[in-house]
């Protein structure tokens, strides 16, 4: 399904969480689809089952999974997913470092602003408060 990078500094359970989120956002995992059991996932990734369990709990807390007792975990309908604020924070961070690098490499403020205009911004799909 996906691979775990043991060399990454990111905690393994976070990697599992992020990988599942990506699969759900990309539509690879459909709403109400059953996800592999903790055991199967642990065996497939050769990762400690307790770590997988922790990741599943986290996915449930963030609204990506729901569990039915005795049946296992299932993918939630995206509308119910409430974890986007975290992602927004991540993206802002990425944006900040990208802009900093552009400035370092000699991009002028005007160029960067122009770049932003060329993206979704010009379509008016922007939150005024942001």
């Amino acid at each position, binding site marked *: 399904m996906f691979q*775990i990078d*043991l*060399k990454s*500094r*990111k*905690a*393994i*359970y976070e990697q599992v969480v992020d990988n599942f989120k990506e699969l759900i956002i990309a539509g690879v995992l459909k709403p109400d689809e059953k996800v592999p059991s*903790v*055991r199967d996932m*642990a*065996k497939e990734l*050769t*990762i*400690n*089952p*307790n*770590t997988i369990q*922790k990741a599943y709990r986290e996915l449930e807390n963030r609204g990506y999974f729901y569990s039915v007792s005795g049946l296992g975990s299932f993918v939630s309908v995206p509308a119910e997913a409430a974890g986007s604020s975290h992602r927004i924070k991540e993206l802002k961070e990425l944006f900040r470092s990208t802009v*900093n690098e552009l400035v370092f490499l000699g991009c002028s403020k005007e160029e960067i602003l122009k770049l932003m205009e060329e993206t979704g911004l010009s379509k008016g799909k922007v939150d005024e408060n942001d």
Partner: protein
Amino acid sequence: MIKVENLTKEFEGFKALDELNLHVRKGSIYGLVGVNGSGKTTVIKHIAGVYKQDRGRVIIDGEDIFDNIPIKRRLSYISDDLYFFGMYTLKGSAAYYQKLYPEWNSDRYAHMTEKFGLDENKRLSKFSKGMRKQAAFILAMSSMPDVLILDEPIDGLDPLVRRLVIKYIVEDVAEREMTVLVSSHNLKEMEGLCDSIGIINRGKMLIERDLDDLKSDVHKIQAVFPEGKEVVLEGLNVLFREKRGSVDMLIIRGNGDEIESRLRKNKPVVLDLLPLSLEEIFIYEIGGEKDEFKELLF
């Protein structure tokens, strides 16, 4: 599942273990780490019921382990220095284990012997060092233990065999909630395998925690702050700070998000915040107050 309380052991006046405490939950994979001579193997030999303690208790599943045969039947221990009967083959050893362990699983033995590709009719003394370790692992896993104790099990095995060994361990933890205590110097590998970590030093338990909590608690930061302005580090638990040129190296304990938002107030030009790896935590905690060890972190 495993509980060690105030364990003390002396060897000819040398205090190998000093009031050591250790706890392993059922179904957990617990990593025991420490420098050479810190007492890892001594603790392990107490938990396996090989040594008798001077003071304190070693309890498995509510009972004292020493001389406790019913509990020992549910426990497998692979020591660092393996011992086999001189003339025995793997097959002969398996027959012997079968008599000792009531839960012995012949199907698993056959399956694993084939998977590892060992010749069960060859004398164990003719096996290479790594093959002997594999043989010990097959015997330990085929006795279907509730508690598995491994003293540097994967050190000295080739990468393929290592993956296979880890796969079997993970499978049994997932399927039957086997409890595992493992010691190793290979901290990278421990990071993927363990959920709890105990760091011991000079016969004492230094830290015992969930690996994820341990890792998210201490952060290393490389930052460049604007020149000429005083950097405000108020409210931050700064463990170490060093300036190298214009770059600030910091080690700060606490929540990652909070550290970051506080540091951002100084308007840093560069700010990299990284959780420490297990190896770095080890260097940091064992190195203690000595700054020359902390410098190893950057």
